[in-house]
């Protein structure tokens, strides 16, 4: 779908592509801190920092979603970006299972500002979701909430390939 991830309804959790220092920062971080309230950042402080591929969960506080999965993915062409992105996705999905979330939403993980090519993002993240859902116990639905038709077209093309 095309939409704004903090505004979509009926999600148990949403993913946020987090920084290693777990500071919410700009972009979707602005939306989370503005709409979710200061307690989200406060909750993140107890984790200190995190390594790439780590995922930590906090309450969504005032957001529509109950939980936020803060997933620290690879950034700016760092080494082994593709494999690290796959691990980050799988860790986020595991965290969702651990919290017994049934419906979760992801943005285009790492694409855009952090420079993961959109095609790589679609292939790796959708591939990880398919791999994980086959054995998931709690998770029923994963939504990719994208920002524009440019992102949507690439994800749809890849979905077609997966089906084909």
């Amino acid at each position, binding site marked *: 779908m095309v939409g704004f991830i903090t505004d979509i309804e009926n999600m148990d959790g949403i993913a946020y592509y987090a920084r290693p220092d777990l500071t919410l*920062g700009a972009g979707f971080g602005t939306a989370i801190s503005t709409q979710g309230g200061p307690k989200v950042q406060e909750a993140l402080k107890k984790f200190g920092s995190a390594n790439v591929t780590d995922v930590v969960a906090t309450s969504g506080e005032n957001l529509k979603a109950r939980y936020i999965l803060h997933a620290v993915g690879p950034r700016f062409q760092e080494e082994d970006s593709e494999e690290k992105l796959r691990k980050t996705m799988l860790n986020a999905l595991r965290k969702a299972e651990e919290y017994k979330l049934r419906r979760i939403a992801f943005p285009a993980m790492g694409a855009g*500002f952090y420079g993961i090519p959109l095609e790589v993002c679609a292939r790796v993240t959708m591939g990880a979701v398919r791999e994980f859902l086959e054995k998931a116990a709690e998770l029923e639905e994963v939504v990719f909430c994208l*920002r524009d038709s440019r992102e949507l077209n690439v994800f749809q093309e890849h979905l077609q390939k997966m089906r084909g």
Partner: protein
Amino acid sequence: MAQNARSRKADKVVERMGRKLTRQMVGSLVGCVHCGMCTDSCHYVLANPDDPTYAPAHKADQIRKIFKRNFDWTGRIFPWWVHAEDIRTDADLEKLKDIVFGKCTNCRRCSLNCPMGVDFATLNRMARGALVSVGIMPEGVAIVSKDQWEVGNQMGVLPQDYLETLEWLSDELENEFKDPAARIPIDKMDAEIVYAINPREVKYDPRTISDAARIFYIAGENWTMPSEGWDMTNFGLFSGDDELGAAVAQRVYDRVIKLRGKKLVLSECGHGYRSTRCEGPNWSGKAVPFVIESSVLTMLRYIKEGWIRVDKTKNKEVVTFHDSCNNARSCGFYEEPRELLNLLVPDFREMYPNCAENFCCTGGGGAMSMSEYTPQRLKSAKIKADQLTATEAKTVVTSCHNCVDGLSDVIRHYKLGMKVTQLVNLAANAMMIPEKVVVPVEVPIPAVALPLAGFKILVVDDEPDILTFLAAVLEDQGATVIQAVDGEQALALTVREKPDLVTLDLSMPGRNGGYVFEEIRNNPEITSTRVCIITGKPELRRLIYERPVAPPEGYLDKPVNEDTLLTSVRMILELKHPHGNA
């Protein structure tokens, strides 16, 4: 051999440079004869005549030597002969960052004056893009870029806030004209005009949106504003990130196509005009199936064709006009704003040089977001300040939101006592309301004491947008507001003016907010001054509360909205809410 010695980031930078070497780029890389013509055209050089590192040719050489070492045969074989040199470490990249972001606003004045046709600004932008791709950029550039990628506009205005702003502006418009049709149409299909704006208008200057709406309403235009893809600015132009440039432009185009709009009209913004009208189709690689025009042309057409009538005597002040670099130099757009201006004011005085030769406002190229370079930017602004002063005008008109902020900063720093406005404001003010539109008669309202009347408040922030916002909100409530742009000024004004309250930014060049706060607390003369910390870096909060002095009376995280600010200020000043609540 050289490649093996490079850091991964340096390797990626060189790799990206190789992908960006178009004929235009290579022409500029090999064409320089070091004649020195560019030095006299650069405001950084003119303000720093003893520092050759500001010379455009010198700055270009820092990029050129990497090109020669890696892509030009002479530099690969005889590096010592042609001054070729590789970039190897992350420290080298940081050094290059300070040159390409901190010593140039990409204004292109040197490009225009180069007899060899070297377009240094294009090289500089390419180098910026290469650095951004490996995550090396000023913090402000990172924030604005991420906001535009993810939220959809470069000021992080959330969808709901944008729509709510248009809603209350519509309510005001409807009330002003007592006409339910006098509203801002959102996502109206098949409109003649789809109007896209700069997010600064929503966040800091909604008056420009309502002025445009008044003009469209009186002209009887069939127009609309989009709920998505409404940001016509594009930080990709400044950061050198072509992917961002393409994505942002495509979002705007897609929305116009979805709404089946006939024409896209862009509000007054120089880099937005260049990005959306001129560069966007190149970045996105797609043709645009509708007309794109500046609102300056729209307003001019309305007046010349009689859609609206204006009375120029309503704009009494003496004005001068500042050409935006992107409008005038990069797009050749400078005659039309003057034609419109002459219809709107009785006394217009040119500044010199002007049009394509005008000097940058010094806030271009994203410079306003890079606070670490503010001191050198303001030093270079001496050229602009002298230019403004020589006009003897009290108002400077510009057709660019970025220039509004850049000029406001120059005017404040050099104490020029001028104000800045835009053509849309002058047009709305000069517009004659036809008789068929019923305008309510103003009923005198008995004066009511404003809640902050009698209080003196010092606002401290190095970001001019934020300073203007804070001052406007507090002044509207009756406070006497003093402004400071750095720590030293803040301390001096606190001692001299004894304000009732200081709102204090933490992250500022020079003496930061934490230092200022501790100095206030340790100075017996001003120790009881009430302080409200306002910061965009919540992680710095600990540094304030861990200081061995009494804590501040208030603390707010940016972004701050009007309600939150006023509630906090009233609480700190121990005022009752105007409606009776504590």
